[in-house]
């Protein structure tokens, strides 16, 4: 197994030389088919990925298709994967509804020589070539805690409003934020964890219920798009703006009004549009066999990234606040 390693070093070296050469050194001679399969079509965070991906696809000579199920179901995604396999796509990129359920279909794709790149929410490691992690979990956990903790008392009681009890990425973040909180805000307690099922209405109801049932809560961390909006709307409806701080993650368009109203002081995320671009770069490079599980590569304007065991960390958390939120539209 010396040769691949050598090759990887070689590629890394070549890439190192060509920093600043943008996309020019990526082989784009052959037009390839790349599909992007979100958890479900019709959610704006994923639309933001699409926006970036379309941009990048033009530069990278990619025939781009954005498709997915109408409900957030694994079966829907699997059906889409199967059709993509039958249509001989070159690369499938996806953010999964569930890490385990999608694995068999994706493994089948890999067996057929299709490259699989997951982003946002991972699938089982052996069912994809690369995973673009939005941000490192510990860092994002920290950002989530800080988005609320900075503005409330160190011994405050906080609540968590998540999507579903078995949402992989949310659970990873909640785990990370608990670790960080225990280390840095030992007196802070989480009094309740509720779920909004990623539905705006159920998130709102859950938010209202949290605040009514737990009047001593002064902060809500909602690591889910619908949940953060629901929690913020609940705070606003109860007239608790300023008294209860909401943090979490959501796309800037959804939370803009609440950030401006002061319900949300800061909300960490990452640049979804740029992430979409990176997904296409990785797809292209993966097709070209230009990157490997452990390597460093350059993705055009986006800069240099490092893959470690196939995991590529996209960026540090991008914190939205009242000052910067108007610069982001997705």
């Amino acid at each position, binding site marked *: 197994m010396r040769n691949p390693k050598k090759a990887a070093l070689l590629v890394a070296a070549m890439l190192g030389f060509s920093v600043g050469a943008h996309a020019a050194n990526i082989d784009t001679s052959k037009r390839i088919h790349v599909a992007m399969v979100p958890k479900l079509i*019709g959610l704006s965070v994923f639309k933001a990925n699409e926006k970036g991906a379309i941009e990048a696809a033009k530069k990278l000579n990619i025939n781009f298709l954005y498709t997915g199920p*109408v409900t957030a179901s694994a079966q829907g995604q699997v059906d889409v994967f199967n059709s993509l396999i039958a249509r001989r796509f070159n690369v499938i990129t996806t953010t999964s509804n569930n890490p385990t359920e999608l694995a068999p279909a994706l493994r089948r794709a890999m067996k057929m020589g299709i490259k699989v790149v997951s982003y946002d929410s991972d699938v089982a490691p052996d069912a994809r070539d690369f995973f673009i992690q939005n941000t490192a979990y510990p860092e994002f956990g920290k950002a989530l805690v800080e988005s609320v903790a900075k503005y409330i008392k160190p011994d405050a009681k906080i609540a968590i409003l998540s999507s579903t009890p078995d949402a992989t990425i949310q659970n990873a973040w909640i785990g990370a934020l608990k670790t960080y909180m225990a280390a840095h805000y030992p007196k802070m307690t989480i009094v309740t964890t509720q779920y909004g*099922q990623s539905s705006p209405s159920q998130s709102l109801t*859950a938010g209202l219920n949290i605040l009514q*049932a737990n009047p001593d809560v002064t902060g809500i961390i909602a690591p889910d798009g619908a949940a953060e909006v629901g929690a913020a709307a609940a705070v606003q409806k109860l007239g608790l703006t300023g008294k209860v701080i909401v943090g979490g993650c959501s796309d800037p368009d*959804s939370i803009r009004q609440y950030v401006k109203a002061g319900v949300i002081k800061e909300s960490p995320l990452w640049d979804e549009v740029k992430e979409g671009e990176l997904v296409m770069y990785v797809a292209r490079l993966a097709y070209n066999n230009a990157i490997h599980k452990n390597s460093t590569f350059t993705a055009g304007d986006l800069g240099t990234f490092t893959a470690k065991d196939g995991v590529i960390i996209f960026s540090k958390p991008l914190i939205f606040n009242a000052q910067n939120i108007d610069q982001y539209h997705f």
Partner: protein
Amino acid sequence: MKASMTETSGFKTVAPSVKDSRATRRARRETREITLIVAAVVVLLAVGAINHRFVSFENIRFMVLNSVVLSLVALGQTWVIATKGIDLSVAPIMGLTAVVTGLLAQGSGLPLIGAFGIALVIGLVLGTINGLLVARLTIPPIIVTLGTYSIYSGLIFIYSNGTQVDQVPAAYAAFGNGRIAPWLPIPIPVLTLAIVLFLCWFALGYTLFGRAVLAIGNNAVAAYNAGVSVISTQVRVYMISGVLAALAGLVFVCYTGSATVTTGTGDHVELQSIAVALIGGTAIAGGRGNMIGTVLGGLFLSVILTALVFLHVPPIWYSAGEGAMILVTVTLGMRQSRAGKAS
């Protein structure tokens, strides 16, 4: 609506005597409303004793507010079930209206009145399609609305292409969150529900149309023989259901300020609304509709689900609580009516 007033048209009175009409309807009034009110009060007091905030004005206000959207849909569903039908397509109709009006408001600043107009059109058109398929082509309602469920939810995607509503103009937010007057803290959605409830209650109890609906639900052939226009009544019932689902969608987008492609369908509004109507005392076998019961049923559901939060029941058991509640209320209700039949 024209009635044939044969030889006794001279009986016209200026106003219906409340006392008399109540006497006419006493026997068929179920104790369901009272049961639901008593049950809700018991829950309020019991949970209130544990946590005083449960019975705070604010909490009660929100329990009522949270039931508004579902109750609106369920009122439409009550009309349909009263004719022995069922409408599964309310969920996508609600979602479509929320998305269309929300996006138009967000994008081109559609005035609120325009949104009402659009909601009305969506509800009427889609409801009429359901109604015609049921009444004209005589396809069983559950099959018709199962089919249109798929088709209407597709329309949401076609229209929105996945764009979601994040924010609504101030007028919408005011409609969804405002109170009637500064000194009268009744939320406007609750007022809307009250108006719709009054209209439905009045229409079911005091108009020829309402009576035709119940007659069809009881015995469609006999109703036809008695001169009730079965087809047009059925079509109208689905139109009402569509319009109320659409109105619910509009109230939803105004209240929450957001709407996505999964609004309505994602929350299984169709099943929830059937459950609420049945909790409220409407008979699934048709012929009996209880508008007040439906709204009380929606309210009771909201109280129970909120109580579970206050009692610190783990969230995963919320839907089990809802299921158990449906089973208990409906089964007990059937016991009651059977007991009444036996006596």
